[in-house]
């Protein structure tokens, strides 16, 4: 099973919807240990993205993901704009000008994305950032991919790991971003950025989990 061009568009749309459904929660998570704009920023960014995506436009998954990334950077601003944007521009480079992506390539793309976020933001695992759901998700995918797992299973493990990772940020002491200013280091609060990443993986799993697009693939 492959991730198709239209899956990718539906992923982004679903991601937008999940963020919209949870925008207040995300703002509130950010208000507690930051400045309260994370949900609004993600929503503004994804609305802009959805507005520029046409039915078959841009015409390859790589180009599409690149457009998603650059649109997020320009429409979001903030800390999350460049970082979440980087997730997509890095994936775009790995995926290239194709109209379907296999699970293995997708995992490599997500690894590149996580590395890119790490380099740009300078954060490490455990710093209470979006990396704390992004990295576990990538590692979970890497652990199962290549066996006889379907794309669905791979993405299921990613979504689960991202969710757990996000929830566990509640225990972490922030060392990066605005939450590092808070006296408590934000211990006791869930990181908004990690929660945003969780929705990104949930959206992808939702879209692929709905099944539908069984093209001929490796698994």
């Amino acid at each position, binding site marked *: 099973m492959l991730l198709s061009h239209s899956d990718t568009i539906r992923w982004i749309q679903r991601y937008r919807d999940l963020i919209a459904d949870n925008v207040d929660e995300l703002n509130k998570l950010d208000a507690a240990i930051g*400045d309260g*704009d994370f949900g609004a*920023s993600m929503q503004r960014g994804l609305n802009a993205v959805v507005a520029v995506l046409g039915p078959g436009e841009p015409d390859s998954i790589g180009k599409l993901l690149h457009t998603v990334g650059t649109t997020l950077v*320009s429409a979001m601003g903030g*800390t*999350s704009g460049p*970082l979440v944007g980087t997730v997509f521009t890095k994936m775009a480079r790995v995926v290239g000008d194709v109209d379907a992506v296999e699970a293995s390539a997708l995992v490599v793309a997500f690894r590149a994305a996580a590395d890119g976020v790490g380099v740009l933001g300078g954060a490490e695992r455990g710093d209470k950032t979006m990396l704390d759901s992004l990295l576990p998700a990538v590692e979970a995918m890497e652990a199962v991919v290549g066996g006889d797992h379907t794309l669905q299973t791979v993405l299921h493990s990613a979504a689960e790991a991202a969710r757990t990772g996000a929830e566990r940020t509640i225990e972490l002491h922030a060392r990066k971003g605005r939450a590092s200013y808070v006296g408590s280091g934000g211990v006791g609060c869930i990181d908004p950025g990690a929660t945003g990443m969780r929705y990104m993986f949930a959206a992808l799993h939702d879209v692929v989990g709905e099944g539908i697009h069984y093209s001929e693939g490796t698994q």
Partner: protein
Amino acid sequence: MKKLINDPAEVVADALTGMAAVHPDMLTIHRNPDFIRRRNSPVAGKVALVSGGGSGHEPMHGGFVGIGMLDAACPGAVFTSPSANQIQAAAAAVATEAGVLFIVKNYTGDRLNFTMAAEWLADDGIPCEVVLVDDDVAVENSTHTAGRRGTGATVLVEKIAGAAAEQGRSLLAVAQLARRVNAGARSMGLALTSSTVPHVGSPNFVIGDAEVELGVGIHGEPGRRRIPHAPVKELVALLSEAVIGDLPFVAGDRVIAFTNGLGGTPLIELYIAAGELAACCAAHGLTVARSLAGSYITALEMAGCTITLLRVDDEMLELWDAPVTTAALRW
């Protein structure tokens, strides 16, 4: 949430419309991407100063655009750093062959976006320097934080660097001076009330009726410590001890003393706080060479203040005194 706004999503756009209406003699407003630019910019031969940050801090930075200060300012969404694209567009609009100086408050978002924009400018062959402002002693300066935040010193850096640029100094000279100003400045703030981001609709945090939040951030970030409310004499003493002890400022130093309101505190209270700050300086043997008191860096309608001290030399004082014609600072 009761504010004089229309749609929360249009707050920045509507405020820009208002700025354009009020200051047609000084500013030109560009929309999509949004930036505020000095009238008749670019100014040939002059290093262009560009700053920006989230909205909600007015008059910073748009109110500092004009002769003797900034060439352009990029307002992000409320409390949200402007995007790299926005910054690039603003810089491109005002850049000269003398280059562009970015004055960036040290927040992760601002750093990321300004740095990206700086790289894009460099790719386009425009010389560009980035100066970080990180004066807030409320944040521990360790590897366990994102580093100190930029607060009150920003106004001082922008004024003094702006005057130097106006004199025709080189990009490197202006950048070096700006870094020197930042290095000699320290700030700390406190809040009596929180503030409400329009699209959130409820306050970022709640401060009890008898409490004060010490070390609060200008984006409504919770501070480091809650203390019982006390006479302003004691509160300003707390802030200034932290500020003075950090650099440290020592007896004999000449300083600019800046008492800044966070948006909801009226001027009568700021004058009282400024008087207490002057008294603290005197008690430490510091000579207040110049003072500034007013709401220049706000956090929406937050009640509270920040205090900033800058150790000055003759050069900085001369540049501080140099003419400036902006919406918020003018002399």
